[in-house]
């Protein structure tokens, strides 16, 4: 494990723009936090299965039947921009 973090790169992966001030504060704080997290290296985890959920339930399905859901108008109610019953987004493909 390394405590070094390329903050600009990770922020770009997370799609979060940071101000210069945020970069400098977050950089040192994340270094501290990652330093603290290093302590997990002390634990012997050989042969231990990972836990993703405390009570995993599998194959929870329902019958494939149509059920009521939000109307088009309700689904678009909170949209920052919409047109013709669709979410309006910036051009993606030239």
């Amino acid at each position, binding site marked *: 494990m390394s405590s070094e973090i390329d903050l600009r790169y990770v922020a770009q992966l997370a799609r979060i*723009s940071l101000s210069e001030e945020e970069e400098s504060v*977050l950089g040192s704080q994340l270094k501290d936090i990652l330093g603290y997290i290093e302590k997990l290296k*002390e634990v012997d*985890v050989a042969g231990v299965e*990972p836990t993703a959920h405390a*009570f995993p*339930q599998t194959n929870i399905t329902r019958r494939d039947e149509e059920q009521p859901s939000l109307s088009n108008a309700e689904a678009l109610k909170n949209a920052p921009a919409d047109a013709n019953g669709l979410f309006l987004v*910036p051009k993606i493909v030239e």
Partner: protein
Amino acid sequence: MLNQLTLTELVERLEDRQVSSCAVTQDCLDQIKRVDSELHAFLSCDSEDALAQAKAADQAMTAGVTHREKPLLGVPVAIKDIIAVRNQPMSCGSRILHDYLSPYDATVISRLRAAGAVVFGRLNMDEFAMGSSNENSAFGPVRNPWDTTRIPGGSSGGSAAAVVADECIASLGSDTGGSVRQPAALCGCVGLKPSYGRVSRYGLVAYASSLDQVGCCAKRVRDAAVLLEALSGMDPRDSTTVPQPVPHYTSALTGEIKGLRIGLPKEYMVGGLDAEVETAIKAAVKQFAKLGATVVDVSLPHTDYAIATYYIIATAEASANLARFDGIRYGLRVEGSDPAELYSRTRGDGFGVEVKRRIILGTYVLSSGYYDAYYLRAQKVRTLIRSDFLKAFEQVDAILTPTTPTPAFRIGEKTGDPLQMYLSDIFTISANLAGICGISLPCGFTRDPKLPIGLQLQGKPFAEETILRLAHAYEQSTTWHKERPRIGERK
């Protein structure tokens, strides 16, 4: 002042038709007007809608509907701003959702409505439930009703403060690492986190899906038991809810705890524990022994790794869950020259610094080359933490600890050092990793200033009856729960 009634007292009076739901709802709304400019527990409150629901409840009672059929009929319950209530705002304490209106009811809201409750208010919180002090709310912090220069705890700070200040009869919160129990302890009320899977998360905005659970704040243990029964049960809309039957929780409140075994984890009585908290907890342990419980030492050897494990798993899950806030379908949008710039600007402007910190940390621990070292290792340590608890529960029925290492700290005291803030969650965080249930209740006060101290009981998965029974017996044999803050009296 009907707003000062406990839920159980209110239900008795509503049943006897001594009071109306309109009158108690109005008293809650008046109390909000009186004290909330100081407390800031509510982000908003639709009084008209609350009174309309109260009127409907009164009409139902007149028409003969009983509290046996609808146990919460006419009871005003306030809601944390992270739980969807149809046509009400839901900001999650964030600028990115500042103008969002929920298009549907969360399952817990449908259940409250089915039980007859008056569902009202949007309770302030740390942004997206990330925080231990409420200072991460984009709209300014909630203040502690016992001392308004201090934090109420978080992230459900509004839920606890509103109950303690009698602005509502009870409230809903959410608990991912202690977010119901910790503010309940610091404000001085009962806070219950059910076992993972007991209560539906449908309509609860996701922070860390494998840890999140809806809980409640209430004035008494019995009130929390009534609420839990209304909230619990399998939900086809949340595949992580369990099929276990829902017990009649109030039947467990017999006052009889002889023969129950309580474990004290030796790893918890360590450095950093405030002296007055320690004294109060030791006195509570004696009280439980006096009531007939057997107290024994237990060991939870991986306690020291819980916070590191939590801040990897929770942030990893958060980085995925919060990807949905991208300025496309709802919430804030800041335009950019291409979609990627739009996302980055929207999220850069819309999220506060703690949310950014956690998303970035979560993105990092999941990123290529680090996944095994951080995320996978944390999941394995989670297994060890969970098996510590399950082993301890082979010897005991419940585990008793302080809820928090210290009483409420001052606003601003820890904001510069997030790691110190994270460390204050040490006693509550493991329950979420292990999926077990926990309850916090008042067990004393510090001397000067006078601040509440909370004790936590943790129980086996789906053994809420046991911790409620223990908590109720203790509560009924002490007077801490009867103390009231002086907020609002000075004017």
